[in-house]
């Protein structure tokens, strides 16, 4: 299992559009990508679940990837977080 921590910089937090793009993007990995934060956790491939975590600016999230392609998956997901949240 691979993981990274990230503090949300975006003013609105994890909001709908990038979360939706992320949900689509992670489907191409065989690994399971999970986001945890604000006392909750959700499958990154599920937009509504991710949004319902209510992650806002300044909160720290932990993202994990578990599966065969976890190295690529975590690297690309971390890049996505840095660019979008």
């Amino acid at each position, binding site marked *: 299992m691979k993981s990274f921590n990230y503090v949300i910089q975006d003013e609105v*937090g994890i909001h709908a559009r990038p979360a*939706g793009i992320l949900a689509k993007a992670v489907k191409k990995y065989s690994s399971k990508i999970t986001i945890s934060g604000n006392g909750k956790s959700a499958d990154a491939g599920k937009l509504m679940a991710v949004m319902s975590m209510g992650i806002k600016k300044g909160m720290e999230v932990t993202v994990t990837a578990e599966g065969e392609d976890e190295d690529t998956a975590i690297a690309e997901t971390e890049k996505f977080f840095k660019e979008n949240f």
Partner: protein
Amino acid sequence: MEKFEGKSILKGVAIGKIHYYSKGEQVVQRVSVEDTGAELQRFEAAKEKALEQLHELYEKALREVGEVNAAIFDVHAMMLEDDDFNDSIRNAIESQKVNAEYAVATTGDNFARMFEEMDDEYFQARSADIKDISERVVSVLHGAGAKNALGDEPVILAAKDLAPSETVQMDKSKLLGFVTEFGSSNSHTAILARTMNIPALIGIPVDESLEGRTAIIDGVTAALILDPDEETLKLYQEKKQEEERQRELLQELKGKEDVTLDGKHIRLYANIGSVGDTAKVLANDADGIGLFRSEFLYLEKSDYPTEEEQFQAYKTVAQNMAGKKVIIRTLDIGADKQVDYFNLDHEENPAMGYRAIRICLDREDIFRTQLRAILRASAYGNIGIMYPMIISVDEVKKCKEILAQVREELANQGIPVGDVEQGVMIETPAAVMISDLLAGEVDFFSIGTNDLTQYTLAIDRQNAKLDSIYDSHHPAVLRMIRMVVENSHKCGCWVGICGELGADTTLTVDFLRMGIDELSVTPASVLPIRKIIRESVAGEN
């Protein structure tokens, strides 16, 4: 005549008959089904159709209101494809053996409630998006096509609430304004109304009794006036006409160059005091930002803003301006702008006291942090730096030296930095008198007429008793400006005005004749000034 007060979304006047709009009440009934397989297929087909509609709406909105506002339909499409949402609907059809309409409506309600209960305004507002998508799928299942709710005559539309998709589907040429009972100023409908430039009010009690009545939306006082008397109607008709004249005038000028009749190109820039103001700069079509007051970063905080916080703010503005000039004025705190954590001593005469560049050169750590942030941001756009309250060549040399050190530091760390023009604010009589010497040190001058007037006339701006003799058109001030322009041009320095005088339309022609290269004004003044520039002759200077 009746009057209601609500909250205004867009300042402006609309006059017309009200059309009361209610969603074709979609009564969803629970029906038991035998063939759940067929019902699942009905749902899948309706979902595909709804996705298609959303893509079309996205394209329509993209053309009419731009990518930022169109994005909502892209989000709707993504929500509609959400696994949990779909599983919940399929599960209801299969296990409860209910019709697709009922499964979609109850699932939509459940998800919407989940968002409604969240403690953040942004996420709460998403519940309306979920209702919108589930209603869309239900209408497809009901076989209802997208309907045009409006008749032939343009109307003021009144509704309990409007979903973003309903707003976009409406024929804009038939819409004079919106009035809704629900919705927040943050809702997409509100944002769309703003972008489409249609007067809109929220928080007004709406029911079908409004249908067909004559009404006035006064966006300035946030009032809805029903059945206005003749006098009121006449008053608002005049306001409306004036507004239209202004709007037409200004719209025509968007996209036009800031060139005088004799071909001199003027840099017509805007002043901003926060990152959010950039939208106004772009909406008013300014060529760049001539004064980005960096104080907001310090005033909003309870401690010194970090390099990273500042970098993000400068970078955002630089990127949004996409290659157009962004001139950041370094910290101008002190005098009338006080911040607790700076622990500045109380002064008898703060306007002439410890402020602006005087603080920065004394407390270099604060200054270096800001310069690092600005230089890092310069890799993302066309940034300029200007130093406020300069009175000597030494000060400028010191600023340049520190900037050069910071630049080298960043280079050694392998952090990219762009080219940055450096300038000084001319706002003290001292700077005016030595402007020939200062011009050799920098790329540009920006004349801060507010302070320059107060220091030249020796009149405290804050003292209301002196208002009657505070004359910003005083010949002494105008001569100073002329002197600065002449001295700067001798050394190949360009020169602008970023104080309030820059937006004074009675002086624009004089400034052009003096040879001013740049005017930086409030975003709302950009187009009126453009009009004057395009109608004037700069002459030889």
